[in-house]
């Protein structure tokens, strides 16, 4: 399945785009998404940390990602 990943902050700089499309196996987990992302964008591994949000909620590594989910990469937040 093709998933769109929204990117913010430093992740947008790393992707050089506000979003990217990624080809994933059906029902991939967040963990496998991160693995795939880091293969394509090794600079992600240099971040302090980053999380994945699925449908506007922080996702756990074992959570599944489905075709229509809104998926985003959340680098360390620094609002306020």
């Amino acid at each position, binding site marked *: 399945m093709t998933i769109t990943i929204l990117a*913010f*902050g430093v992740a947008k700089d790393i992707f050089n785009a506000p979003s990217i499309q990624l080809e994933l196996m059906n029902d991939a987990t967040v963990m496998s998404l991160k693995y795939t992302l880091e293969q394509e964008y090794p600079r992600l591994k240099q971040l302090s940390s980053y999380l994945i949000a699925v449908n506007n909620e922080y996702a756990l590594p074992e959570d599944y990602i489905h075709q229509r989910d809104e998926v985003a990469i959340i680098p360390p*937040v620094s609002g*306020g």
Partner: protein
Amino acid sequence: MMSSTPTTNILITDATLNIAECSQWVMTPESGGIDVFIGTVRNATKGKAVLRLEFEAYATMAIKEMEKIAAEVYTKWPLQKVLIHHRTGTLQVGEIPVIIAVSAAHRDAAFEAGRYIIDTLKQTVPIWKKEIFEDGEVWVAAHP
């Protein structure tokens, strides 16, 4: 983008934040104390001059996370009203990225909730800040 109930007022906006309006909004006849926290853009970070800041939000999710914080403080303290406004875009030194206002019958609850909200916002709400220096720029907290 906003989220509003009679007692909770959450906003993410590119426009200037208004201290007087935010303070007025949380006032109620039952309030005895109001705590307002105002974040302002500082002219330096670790001794290095900052020219301006840029704030970016994942707005839909940020509103949801702010709603969670507001719901949480209502369970922790007896409060009357809670307001969280955050600005996005380019901000100059002295401008206001965030205003938090909390009203309560007694001041302890207002102070404690105000502080909890800003502390938690900085940990959980998907908003990012870029510091622009004379010789470069950096996304705050991105790298170890």
